């Protein structure tokens, strides 16, 4: 593993561990309001390391809860898009010909949609159902995955080792599971890594607009949104969640890049 993979991975592991353990270490509850400490400034001397929000709730615990929600939503949504995208792409690529043409035309059509507006429409029409966030994000992200997997499958299918297997009498199922799938693994891992920050962006975007998770639940996007309201008097309410969000996104993007470089280098060997 190269440094470009290890460093962001270590960062993410640390952030995730903090999000899981952090709230247990803190004496504060994420919902508990404290009207004596409205918008208290952060600092090591203070009882609240990250300060408090306009209801006096502890921002450290709330940020950790926000990370939990954001990461959970993003990872689950990415897995959803992974399953749909890989299955769809692999079928199109392996079938080839007319089936492939029709299936990919459909993907192209969906690509042309301003998805986020449909998502907003959905969120409004269906009363901010939490499950809908997964559906919405999955619906946006599986397209990339399908395209990449399809392209890769198509080129693998044309490779001569697949022809050799067909000739000998290896079954289609065995060809897919023994020859195609293992060769797809690398690129799929890379793109899942890159799909997660995409999903985080969509989730936090919705939450920022007030269409995502609902109070008193929170996510990083919702925290940023709340912070904007007080940024002139209590900049930390904006900067802390915004910084954490940016750090997480940066780590995932770095990780994806690092994995891709490693994968490309292996392919070039």
């Amino acid at each position, binding site marked *: 593993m190269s440094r470009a993979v290890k460093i962001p991975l270590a960062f993410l592991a640390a952030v995730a561990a903090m999000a899981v353990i952090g709230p247990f270490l803190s004496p504060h509850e994420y919902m508990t309001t404290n009207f004596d400490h409205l918008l208290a400034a952060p600092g090591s001397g203070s009882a609240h390391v990250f300060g408090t929000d306009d209801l006096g709730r502890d921002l450290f615990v709330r940020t950790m809860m926000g990370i939990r929600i954001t990461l959970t939503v993003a990872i689950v949504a990415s897995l959803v898009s992974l399953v749909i995208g890989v299955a769809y792409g692999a079928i199109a690529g392996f079938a080839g010909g007319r089936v492939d043409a029709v299936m990919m035309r459909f993907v192209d059509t969906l690509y042309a*949609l301003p*998805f*986020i507006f449909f998502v907003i429409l*959905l969120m*409004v029409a269906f009363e901010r159902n939490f499950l809908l966030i997964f559906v919405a994000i999955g619906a946006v992200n599986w397209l990339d995955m399908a395209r990449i997997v399809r392209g890769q499958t198509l080129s693998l299918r044309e490779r001569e080792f697949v022809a050799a297997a067909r000739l000998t009498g290896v079954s289609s199922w065995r060809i897919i599971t023994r020859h195609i799938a293992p060769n797809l693994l690398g690129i799929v891992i890379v793109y899942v890594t890159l799909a997660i920050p995409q999903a985080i962006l969509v989730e936090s975007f919705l939450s920022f*607009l007030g269409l995502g998770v609902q109070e008193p639940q929170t996510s990083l996007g919702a925290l*940023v949104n709340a912070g904007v309201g007080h940024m002139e008097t209590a900049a930390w309410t904006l900067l802390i969640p915004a910084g954490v969000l*940016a750090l997480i996104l940066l780590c*995932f993007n770095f990780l994806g890049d690092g994995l891709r470089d490693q994968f490309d280098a292996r392919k070039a060997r």
Partner: protein
Amino acid sequence: MLRYTLFRILGAIPTLLLVIALAFMMVRAAPGGPFDAEYIPSTEVEKNLRDAYGLDDPLPQQFLTYLSGLLRGDLGPSIRQTGYSVAELIGEALPYSFLLGATAMLLALLLGVGAGTVAALRQGSLLDRTITGLSLTGISIPVFVVAPVLVLLFAVKLQWLPAGWGSARGAATWVLPVVTLALPQLAYVARLMRASMIDVLSSDFVRTARAQGLGTATIVRVHALKPAMLPVISYLGPAVAGILTGSVVVEEVFGIPGLGEMFVRAALNRDYTLVLGVVVFYASLIVALNLVVDILYGVIDPRVRYR
């Protein structure tokens, strides 16, 4: 070339119909939908709605009615803003969004292509690593973080630039919104351009051009720029979608009375006809843009036309 263009235009029509149908169905299927009596604030609007959509007709016919309205530029009346038609409201908000989006897009393309090319030419240098690092950061930080942070820094703390819309009209008002909106796209374009330019510069035909004694500037201008631009051109569609999405946030944060801000307000107010109208408008825009991209691709890559 003409056949290719015609073929592409014909191909875009079903996409557009599908998009409109999808949006229409969603609104119709919403529980407690727009056409239920409880959502309709006044009898006048109800009458307008009944006239516009023929609410007692079967669904396919209602869709056709909506479509024929669309062809005449009639998107129906707004539910919340009594007396205004959706088309009028969009017409009022559009100039702001267009100016904002087009400027941001232009900025992102020009600077992105330039920065990417420079980084590729100096691959591995400090400059390259700076551009690469900045662009990765630019992609990673969402617009809704950039926007308030820039306001906090440049408007609140340094007080160099106006923060909101009402404060001071004029060019300065536009600086922060345009920059905020352009940043992530600029970063993405720069990354794309760098990667594809490195690819092209290491291709055999560039080696040929070097063997022919052409200078670096000539090689980039004559040989490399066109093929290296292809990935950027395919990204134009998603870029516009990204700009539209970003404009929702930017207009919110800076209080610009554009389409995005109107859209969010309409969504929160459940002004279904307005929301539907904006979605249809945006979708048509993106479909049209993808069409332009397809055709542009054909112009640049001579091999595409013959496929």
